[in-house]
């Protein structure tokens, strides 16, 4: 990363994210890419807390805290207001967790992107409602323990494929990004910034607290998610053009699962099953990218 990017920072220390929080790292990277002329729209999510209680703020950019289901519609409104004021320079960012994106804010998001409203929606995905105490969301992966999928009732449904859903809206830009791949992340954020219309970034953000992992492996887990093909890095332009950004070493998913307390109960058979699911998804992605 070049020295200038390394140096510029739009976040303050002293925020109250848990130690090793992936969502805090993701915000740092995003703002490094977007710069100061950014408005953050944050619905209920971990970041509502991390950003600090009024009158404190962890960010150098303005933040609008909005209701859980309204990130996308608030972003549409702020964009319209800025346009009226003649400010076309400022980037409007909706920054929501997986709950606010996959579940509660889903209709507002679908509506706004169907209109191709001009903003960047970033979903930082920690795969459950972490802020309220680890409840499952439709982003929680198959096999995971949460407070609402405890014991033998671990989640038996697959994670919703939000990227495909967004791509199906044929918006100009949808991409996945990971905190373990900062260069790729920042390149995508910068690219998204330059595009007009609805743009969506799906960012993998480790949650040491909710995933029952030691905080120091926060980045390592994120990297393994990519290396195992559990969270491939790719872009979809205009809903049709797929580019896979990283060809992983194809580690076995087993290694990823074994490191996390939320998957502790899974048997070897379960893991074989999951490996199949991951392989299948990867094959689908390859064929979409014309590399199948």
């Amino acid at each position, binding site marked *: *990363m070049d020295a200038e990017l*390394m140096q510029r*920072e739009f*976040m*303050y*220390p*002293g*925020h*109250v*994210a848990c*130690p*090793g*929080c*992936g969502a*805090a*790292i993701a915000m*740092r990277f995003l703002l490094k890419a977007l710069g100061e002329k950014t408005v953050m729209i944050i619905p209920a999510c971990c970041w509502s807390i991390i950003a*600090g209680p*009024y*009158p*404190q*703020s*962890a960010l150098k950019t*303005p*933040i609008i805290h909005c209701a859980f289901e309204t990130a996308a519609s608030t972003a549409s409104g702020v964009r319209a207001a800025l346009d009226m004021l003649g400010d076309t320079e400022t980037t409007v960012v909706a920054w929501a967790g997986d709950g606010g994106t996959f579940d509660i804010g889903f209709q507002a998001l679908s509506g706004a992107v169907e209109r191709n409203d001009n903003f960047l929606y970033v979903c930082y995905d920690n795969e459950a409602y972490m802020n309220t105490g680890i409840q499952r969301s439709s982003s929680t992966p198959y096999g995971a323990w949460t407070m609402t999928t405890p014991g033998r009732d671990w989640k038996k449904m697959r994670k919703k494929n939000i990227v495909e859903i967004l791509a199906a809206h044929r918006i100009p830009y949808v991409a996945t990004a990971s*905190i373990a791949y*900062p260069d790729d992340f920042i390149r995508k954020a910068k690219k998204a910034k330059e595009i007009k219309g609805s743009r969506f970034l799906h960012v993998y953000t480790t949650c*040491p607290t909710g995933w029952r992992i*030691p*905080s*120091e*492996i*926060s*980045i*390592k887990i994120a*990297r393994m998610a990519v*290396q195992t093909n559990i969270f491939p890095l790719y872009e979809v332009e205009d809903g049709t053009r797929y580019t896979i950004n990283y060809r992983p070493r194809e580690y076995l998913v087993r290694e990823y699962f074994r490191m996390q307390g939320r998957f502790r109960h899974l048997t070897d058979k379960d893991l074989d099953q999951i490996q199949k699911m991951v392989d299948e998804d990867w094959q689908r992605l390859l064929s979409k990218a014309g590399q199948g």
Partner: protein
Amino acid sequence: MTAEIKNRFLIPLSWITTEGNKTGSWRFLRPRFENKTAPCSAGCPAGEDIPLIEMLIAQGEFKEAWETILTENPFPAVCGRVCFHPCEGFCNRGSYDEPIAIHTMERFLADTASRYDFRASATDTPSHKERIAIAGGGPSGLSAAWFLSRLGYQCDVYEASPEVGGVLRWGIPAYRLPKDAFLQDLRHLEEKGVGIVTNKRIDEDFLKDKDDAYSAFIVACGHGKGQKMGIPGEDNPLVIEGLDFLKNIREEKSVGCEGTTAVIGGGNTAIDVARSVIRLGGKAVIYYRRRRGDMPAFDEEIRMALEEGVEIFELLSPAEIRRDNNQLLLSLQKMVVSGEESGRARVVPDGKKQETVRVDRVIRAIGAKPQEAWMNPPDNGADVQRLSHSCLVYKKGQKPVVYAGDLTNETKSVTHAIASGKQAAIALDVLFREGFAAVPKKLDLCRIGNGQAHSIEIYTGGRRKERSSHIVEFSEVNTDYFTFTPRIRPPLLLVEERRRSFNEITLKISAGIAIEEAGRCFNCGLCNGCDNCRLFCPDLAVIKNGEIRTINYDYCKGCGICVVECPRNAMSLEEEENT
């Protein structure tokens, strides 16, 4: 209230930052920057700072890299050619794909130094009144002189031959070590102002120092006398001593090698003799009493010798030599393996089975010993300290004497000789400043990672002293930041050309290739400023000021990401004291 005023108060605007929250109080683990010791550097007898050298090469800082070698080893051009590079055997990258070509990198730096005429920058050292005499101008004596002069002492090297260098000048053949390469290294010593007196053979009386000219002596005369086989017929003039044979070649005397030469032995001397015979147009056959795998010569040398046409017969021990006209009949006793001793086969005669071969001469290369008995260090006693690479003797009423190099080293090699010279210099410095008894303890303090090697930089309180002695293990390297890449192989002269001439075999590599190879190095335990710590910190608690990175413990929550994401284990995570 006007609408305007109302608006101003109703739009919430944060006006202070979160910096008031000192989240450092949450911490129960504490990361810190801590450079550690790389296994290669602990495994290098000369204690070179290999991770730093490779880092500097990767950055294109060739002069700095070369000077980093010089700090611990005055012979980069020599060692870049003939060192058997034990460092590479310890290299962590070997557990990943292939070890770094550390040896080739050293040679590259020496070639670069010669090409751009690098000069060792003068280091300011105090001048001491003590003056030291060194008997023997081989690698151990010359290294002792180099390190002593760096520590501020005047020294004189006395050498029996017309030129210094010992085995480097008169033993190892030019195809492995050209004369110019040795002279290139010798130049720093000369520029350091070391006094060199050649054609001066020292005898035992010299140590008595009748003129009181010196404060201490170093005996570094090497093992210059070939050992005898002790068999009938050995005194025949067609039986030649290997060291003499090699010396004659280096002195450019004409040496006839027509016909078949039997070479007896399995060490470097035997291999070098046989390969020289081939180059002089003869046929060379090595007879070795143990198995080929037991030969003390370096594997690489044996492999090349075979390529060049040397024949090796194992489990044959010379029994008798008879003259037959202008030839010799060499009888060889067959041996069998009867067990193992220190990793090699123990062999005994296989009954009376013998075979006899007809050869034109026999060259004996079965080992060497000191030329004279007084060169051997004395037996143990209260006034004798047997150190890892030397022997320090301080008898009452006499000047201190250090025995060094092949005379004391268990492993007889050039780097061990250099290590020995360094140890002799440090030992004398400690002795002069703090007394005889302080020597072992002081030496202990400048060991690298608790290994056998010493560092003069650590001894003199340089930056390397700050590194912890923990030797970085492969499992502590974050290999996610590296990709598989094959190690470079330097180009070699074609076998056909090798058979015909004494031209140097190993050729040069380009700077681009060297930079790439050095870039493979994990730089185990040494921060190279990659900034991963700063990049991934969720709490913006890693601060960079100039090139110095620090942790802001006001905010660091102790998540430990920086420590895990450091590719080279240059950080540590410890329990917080107050929890």
